[in-house]
């Protein structure tokens, strides 16, 4: 199919195709996965023979369902739209015009690898995080063919999105580029594009160690312990409890260390599975983010839909000199992971040159930001101190003398946090990027494309009004925003006035 044929609309209609036959097994496994817990419960309660028989029946049912699913699912590209027909009993046809497709993401789990296929998730402009529709198993060549058939246009500076057939009038003028798919012809595989970021194995370990996931794993382990306790018979539990109380202090310490080590290893392994091989390639106007070891996911982020970049430095990571980066992507309200997490871990010192390589135009500010006025600093202490007052007063009222001394802890922590928040807060405007920085716990910096701001506001309370201060906030099309508190009210007024300045044609 030559480009001329496509342009003339004379592309061969094509026959509806089925998914790759491997989809049968993949779907069967998916269905079985859902039934696993129920099956285990049945096995445990009804005994081995009965349980196995029931399991066999259920699995057979899953297989039959999967076969029927495969037979009833067809897709075809027709009239520059992707038509997907599904439904075993109630037929359903989904149509997505090519102009509405913003990305075709792929993912490969173990099963998909066995058959040499990928799952294709169709992302639409203005859609919510979940993919609009999904083709569970197609060959890699077929995925590329789909990309070609759905993305081919008359050159990159083609007709504006508004002229494409079937584009809903809901595409707002301010987001003219939102409906334009950005694909490449087949042959130019993603791997040819330059790599702009890669996560090293060492960084994966650091990511795991510095992320809160360790606590989650620890909690999960504790929870699993609880479940195990329920599963064991009462006698066993009592016997274990007796043994436990007889343990010496050193044994307890060893067990605690073991617990922490196990939780850490699980956390690291989990992070490695999730982010192993994390690579970002940039293809002129698209970012392709590949990650995952067992399940390889490839997500695409059209650069023109990136309206802002958020850099997050948790206290631990900031101490070690690391940060993570998220992209504020338009239209992805409750986003899919791949598209939003841009960089799981990066050295903060590397940001000045790494960031513009990934998202051109966004510069990590090297000069200090405009700080909050001096008279505002003490206001950052109010909220933390009020929160700390509760435990502090409780400790002071405690009968034990030692507890009263402990009351100093929450108060000093509050002061430290408050002062850190005051120091972190700031703003800056340069080259069409508005930079806002603040700290609640982690230090967060939002780099927002100035002419992509959806709206801005200034909020004041009576105390702020008396001191001529105001809190400045912005909201982006990702529906997330940022707030910097206690700025000078004239500065805020000026920032508000300037939100419309660069809005023309944006």
């Amino acid at each position: 199919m030559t480009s001329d044929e496509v342009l003339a609309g004379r592309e061969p209609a094509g026959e509806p195709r089925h998914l790759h036959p491997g989809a049968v097994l993949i779907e069967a496994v998916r269905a079985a996965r859902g039934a696993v817990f129920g099956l285990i419960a049945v096995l445990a309660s009804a005994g081995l023979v009965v349980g196995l028989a029931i399991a066999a029946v259920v699995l057979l049912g899953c297989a039959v369902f999967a076969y029927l699913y495969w037979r009833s699912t067809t897709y075809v590209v027709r009239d520059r739209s992707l038509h997907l027909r599904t439904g075993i009993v109630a037929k359903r046809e989904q149509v997505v015009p090519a102009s509405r497709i913003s990305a075709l993401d792929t993912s490969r789990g173990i099963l998909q690898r066995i058959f040499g296929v990928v799952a294709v998730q169709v992302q639409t402009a203005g859609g919510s995080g979940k993919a609009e529709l999904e083709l569970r198993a197609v060959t890699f060549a077929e995925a590329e063919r789909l990309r070609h058939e759905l993305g081919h246009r008359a050159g990159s500076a083609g007709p504006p999105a508004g002229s494409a057939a079937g584009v809903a009038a809901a595409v707002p003028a301010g987001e003219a580029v939102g409906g334009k798919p950005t694909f490449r012809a087949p042959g130019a595989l993603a791997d040819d594009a330059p790599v702009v970021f890669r996560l090293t194995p060492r960084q994966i370990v650091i990511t795991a160690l510095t992320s809160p996931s360790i606590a989650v794993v620890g909690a999960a382990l504790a929870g699993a312990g609880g479940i195990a306790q329920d599963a064991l018979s009462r006698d066993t539990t009592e016997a274990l409890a007796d043994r436990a109380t007889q343990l010496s202090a050193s044994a307890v310490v060893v067990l605690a260390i073991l617990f922490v080590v196990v939780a850490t290893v699980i956390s690291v392994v989990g992070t490695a599975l999730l982010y192993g091989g994390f690579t970002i390639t940039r293809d002129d106007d698209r970012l392709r983010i590949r990650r995952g070891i067992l399940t390889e996911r490839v997500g695409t982020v059209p650069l023109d839909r990136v309206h802002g970049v958020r850099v997050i430095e948790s206290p631990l990571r900031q101490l070690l000199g690391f940060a993570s980066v998220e992209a504020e992507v338009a239209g992805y309200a409750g986003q899919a992971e791949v598209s939003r997490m841009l960089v799981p871990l990066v050295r903060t010192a590397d940001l000045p040159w790494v960031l513009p390589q990934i998202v051109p135009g966004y510069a990590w500010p090297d000069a200090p930001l405009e700080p909050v006025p001096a008279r505002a600093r003490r206001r950052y202490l109010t909220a933390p101190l009020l929160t700390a007052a509760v435990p502090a007063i409780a400790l002071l009222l405690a009968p034990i003398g030692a507890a009263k001394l402990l009351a100093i802890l929450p108060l000093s922590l509050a002061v430290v946090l408050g002062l850190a928040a005051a120091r972190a807060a700031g703003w800056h405007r340069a080259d069409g990027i508005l930079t806002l920085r603040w700290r609640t716990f982690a230090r967060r910096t939002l780099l927002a494309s100035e002419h992509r701001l959806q709206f801005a506001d200034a909020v004041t309370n009576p105390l702020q009004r008396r001191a001529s201060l105001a809190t400045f906030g912005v909201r982006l099309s990702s529906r997330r925003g940022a707030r910097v508190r206690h700025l000078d009210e004239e500065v805020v007024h000026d920032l508000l006035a300037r939100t419309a300045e660069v809005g023309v044609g944006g």
Partner: protein
Amino acid sequence: MTGLPGDAERIQLPERVVRYWRTNALIVWTPIVIAAVIGAVAAGDGIPGIAAVALIVVPLLAAIIDIAVVQPGRRRIWWYAIGEDQIDLQHGWIFVTRTVIPMTRVQHVEVQRGPVSSSFRLAELEIHTAAGSVKIPALDADEADRIRQQIADLARIADDL
């Protein structure tokens, strides 16, 4: 220093908005006060006299304050201004919020009328952006339509009825 539309001219909500809100408040409070009175009478000797009096007086007082004081106050704290490049509006009493929306970011504008607001010739204006919407709670109905058209023209978007 660049100016905002609200620095030049601020438009307040029409005066009859107060009557509309008072009517709404009355509709809400009446069943509450009646229920309180019935409750106090039905309890009879079950509760001390003071409690019965309080049960009647407190909701009644709250209703009176709401209708007499709060609703007019609500009108005073609202203003809006529509400039060529921005929509500027402010509301709030303790926490005052001034919101600025660049005209080019407006996706569409909706005018909503309810049964009660229509009888006062009032309507609610909702301005939609990609990040959510901002509402002006009660405007003269014709004014609301006019503003909707004005914003639609300024934002160069299709008029959707």
